[in-house]
Each structure stands twice: as C-alpha cells, then as structure tokens.
C-alpha cells in the first residue's frame, strides 16, 4: 500500500525498516538523535543509534571498520561537503579495501548526506559534488529524485555489499509523493523513464528531474515530445537505457545540478558520444550549473543553476528550433 509522505520521511522510514529487519544495521552521525524521544532511539536504543562528535574522518573511517567486521553502518553526514573533510576514508579506503585485499573483505557502508541546498547556504554547503565520486571505482552513488526512490534506494544502499554515497537533495526534502509501506527496494543501475517521448531525450539527475519534467510539459504544448530519463544511480550508471532512448530520439540534453567539467553530465555525454554517436542527429547539449562556486545572493544563485527554461531552450536548440549562442 502506498500513501503520500514527504521525501525526507521516506528516507527515515527506509532506515527504520532496514534496522528492524537486520540487527547489524547501525545509524550514527552528528545531531542524529538529540533526545531520547527520537523515534529511532526509542525503537533501537542508544547502542545502535549514536550521536557522534564533529569528527568526519573518524565517523567515516569507523563506518569502514564496522563494515569490515560485518556490520552495515549508515552514517549521517548532513552536508555532502562534509565528506570532503574525510576524502581519504570516502574514496581511498571504503571503495579500495575490497580490491586491495584481493576480494577478502567487503565494505557495506552508507554515507548519507544532503547536497544542492541552493537556499542561501552559499559556497561551502550547497555544492552538487557527486560527480567527483564517479571517478572512484568501487564507490556507488545514489541520487533519489522522488520520495519512493528515496526510500527504495536507501534500502538498497543498506543491503548492498559495497560503499554507497546516498545523496538527498535538500531542496526536495518536504516534497510529498506516493511511497510504498513496509519493505521496499529500488534496484541500483536501473534508470527510470519518467516521461516517454520520441523527439528528444533529456537525462536529468536528482533535483533536475522535476525541472526537466516541467520543461517537457511546456515543450509538449508546442508539439515537442521529450523523453525524460532519471538514472537514479550514477554508479552503476544505466547507459543501456540512455543509449536506447537516444537511438529512438537522436537528440540528447543532459540536465544536472552539478558543475560541468569533470562532472556527472560530462561522463554521461562521453558515454553517449562514444557508444551512441551513430544515433545522434545533433550535438549533445549539457544544462548544468555554471563552473563557479555557488554564490550567496539569491538572484546570482538562480543565475548559475540549471532551470526549466534553460532545459527547454536547450531542447529547442538541439531540435534546430532556437539559435545556439556562439
């Protein structure tokens, strides 16, 4: 049975359900349970739900050590940028230890954080920095764009035997949506086709999925049918679904809240350029954040981000219906 709950509640529900079904799941992080009235503390106690000091390297390193010993930690890191404090643990330990041990160990850890909080939190708390994690084999990346996926991808992240960066978009936390009750998993590496269309493919991630769907509605009024694909996980990346859509439409626009160079959009563009070149009737267009640090001032913040209008304009450009700026 599905019922409507907010995105953030869906995340919490997944953690609670998974903690109920598996006693090796532990949850900790800064400020996660400020009082004993916290529902997770009530359900599982202070041994499995822990408040940690502001010590990201120890928090994430500890998760790796828990995972190596057979537990399934979920670490609340609040802001994606806080993972940068512990880059050695996130990228140089968690995803490498299985490989370097010749397959002797596994590291089932979830690094949960928010990203993209473009609400005046300025340069060090608003980044959509997941693209850099795509460069580390062994590290999975989930970017839920709906409340149902927020629940299902968290459950999968916890059950996965590999380290997962599970990133929620802070602009979406209160958005409601239908979410199945009880155990619910969404597989990694399977893109969702959010809207079908034959004229152009829009691959959109996280928060931009909603923007792309809004753009698609506007375009439909002019008779342009866009197919909107949400990869849901950047690693593994469902290139097959993207390529098959591009084979049908011949045109690709990629929308991503992150910056462009070395980012998720560039990786997707490269995959299609290499493996789907024969299908393309126009150059691939990327609608990303500008390659700048997110500014504080509200109009400037909006200026640097992708939005519905920029996505729609790019679609018209790849269709040859709008001029392309030199």
């Amino acid at each position, binding site marked *: 049975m599905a019922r409507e709950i907010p995105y953030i509640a869906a995340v919490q529900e997944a953690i609670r359900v998974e903690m109920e079904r598996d006693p090796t799941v*532990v949850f900790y992080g800064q400020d996660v349970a400020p009082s004993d009235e916290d529902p997770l503390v009530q359900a599982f106690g202070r041994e499995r739900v822990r408040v940690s*000091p502001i010590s990201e390297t*120890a928090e994430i390193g500890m998760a790796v050590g828990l995972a*190596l010993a057979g537990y399934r930690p979920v670490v609340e890191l609040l802001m994606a940028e806080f993972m940068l404090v512990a880059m050695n643990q996130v990228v140089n330990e968690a995803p490498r230890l*299985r490989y370097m041990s*010749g397959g002797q160990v596994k590291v089932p850890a979830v690094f949960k954080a928010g990203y993209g909080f473009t609400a005046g939190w300025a340069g060090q708390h608003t980044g959509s920095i997941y693209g850099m994690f795509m460069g580390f084999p062994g590290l999975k990346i989930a970017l839920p764009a709906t409340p149902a996926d927020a629940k299902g991808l968290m459950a999968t992240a916890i059950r996965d035997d*590999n380290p997962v960066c599970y990133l929620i978009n802070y602009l979406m936390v209160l958005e409601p949506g239908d979410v199945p009750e009880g155990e619910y998993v969404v597989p990694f590496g399977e893109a969702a086709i959010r809207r079908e269309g034959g004229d152009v493919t829009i691959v959109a991630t996280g928060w931009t999925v909603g923007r792309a769907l809004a753009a698609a509605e506007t375009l439909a009024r002019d008779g342009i049918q866009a197919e909107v694909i949400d990869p849901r996980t950047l690693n593994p990346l469902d290139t097959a679904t993207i390529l098959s859509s591009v084979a049908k439409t011949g045109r690709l626009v990629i929308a991503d809240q992150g910056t462009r160079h070395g980012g998720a959009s560039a990786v997707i563009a490269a995959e299609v350029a290499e493996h789907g070149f024969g299908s393309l009737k126009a150059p691939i267009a990327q609608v990303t954040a500008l390659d700048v640090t997110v500014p504080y001032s509200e109009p400037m913040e909006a200026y640097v981000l992708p939005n519905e209008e920029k996505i729609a304009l790019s679609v018209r450009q790849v269709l040859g219906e709008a001029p392309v700026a030199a």
Partner: protein
Amino acid sequence: MDRDVAQALLRTMWRIRLFEERVGQLKRNLQVHGLIHLSIGGEGVAAAVCGQLRDDDAVYSGHRAHGHAIAKGAPMTAVMAELMGRESGICHGLGGSMHLVDTEHGFMGATGVVGGNLPLALGTALTQRLKGTGQVTVVFFGDGAVQAGYFSESINLAALWELPVVFVCENNGMAEFTSREEHSTIDRVSDVVAPYGFERTTVNGSDVPAVYDTFEQFLAKARAGKGPYLLECVTYRRRGHYEGDPEKYRDPAAEREWAERDPLARMTERAVEEDWIEGGAAEMIARETREEIEEAVRFARDSPFPDPDIAPTLVYAK
C-alpha cells in the same frame, strides 16, 4: 615468563627479522616490486602483542606491516608471494606491501596513509562492543601518526564510547625522515592522551617481556569489555623509512646505542639467563626459520603472476 611463551615469542621475532632481511635483499635484486618499509628493530612489539591475540581479534596496521601480519598468523609464503606480486599472494598481488590483509587470522588490514587505520579500528571495536563476545581490536601506528587529525578524533571517540581497542604506538622517534622533535613539542605519546583519562603506559619496546606483561593486563580488561587503552613502546627503526632511503638523517651514535638494545639479541640473552631456552636453541630457531623463509621465496618464485583478467572482477562485492 612461561618457557613455551618465551620460545614462541623468539620464534616469531626471528621470523620477522629474517623475513624482513630477505625482503630487503630481494628488493635490492629487483625481485620485490614497489615501495617497501621494513620493521627491523620492532619485532618484539609485534610478537608480544599479536602473540596474545586470538584469530577472531582484529589487528590493523599501517605502511610498515609485514611484521604485524606475520605475528598475527599470516603465512609467510603468501605474504612473500604478495610482495613479489604473485597470484598466490595473500591479496592475489593486488594489495602489496602496504595493504596486506589476512581475514582468516584477523589481520583486518594495513593502510598506506599514516593514521588512516585508527578510525577503522574504532569501527571494528564497536562491533565487538555490540556483540559482547570479548573480542578486541588492536591498532598499530607510529609516533608520526599522532600529529595527524585522525589520532585526535579517534582517541576522543574511543574514550567517549568506551571501545575495546588497544592503541599500540611504536614510538621510534622518527616520522618518515625527520625526528619527533621536529613534529611535536610532546615527547611521549602517553602524555598526549593523558587528559582523556583512560589507562596508558610507556614501555621500552626492546624489553619484550615488559611489552608482553603490560599488554597482557590491557588485553584482559579489554576482553571484559573495557577500553580504550594505549600502550606506547619506545623503539627504534633500524632501517630507512623505505628500502633505498639514503638515510642522511641517521645518527651513528644512536645506531650504536640501539644495536646494543636490539630486541631480538636482548630477548635471546634474557631467555638463556632465565632458562627459558636451552643453550644453542636460538641458533636452531634461526636455522629453522631461515629454511621456512627460503621455502616462502621458492613458493613465491614458482607462482605465476595474476591473470590480468581478474583486474576488473574484484572491484565490487556482488
């Protein structure tokens, strides 16, 4: 000290000493690939600590890991094969000297970034606390790691959460190529952790029975679920930071002084004095160990290099 214990310690120390000397030779002959850090001079700490642990206790080590792995029970054949990059290596040649892992013997791993192993030990110790099965975690690190942020964070969290972990600091007075005075105003690592209020002791790392006895006390308490503890062993790195290090910093006076304090020589003398071993027994242990090591070298040389096709297969756990 029990005779069997003393003899086992001596055998482990000989294994590490001769293994490391042989690896140094193989490195010079270009038969061992890559960056190699030897633990000659530190054998006593590895033997006295790991010799008291069970296979289901966890040990973490750093870049100077061969001795800890061998003392925890990793077979010398598979460790040697790993250093020579062979398929039969303990990590199939994918990890190498700085990333040895032997889960079968609870050697949960060596990490190559100084101090990076400290938080890992906390996580494993937390699982032991949650399970309540009396297992403990030991993490080895040098005095160079103490100035890294990992150390402060890990010591604080281990104390706060009362984790059953024993921090074993091998204070050899050198962080890579420079002396402790150039890294910190605090000489003793046990002083660094003083405000946290947990038990800590500094011992002479060349006095192997002293290391053994002190660790034995901490271990008993950690098994009962208490912790953390810090055991600081003042020791000496008789080789360079890495094999090939020109060692321009080497002080000949300290070298002579520590040659006299060599833990293996001292432990052998003490064992004869205390009648823990018969006269001539040390020579026999050394001879037998040398043969074991030659067997390990033969095993490694006879093993093929890994099939390149395994490269992409071990990235993800299925």
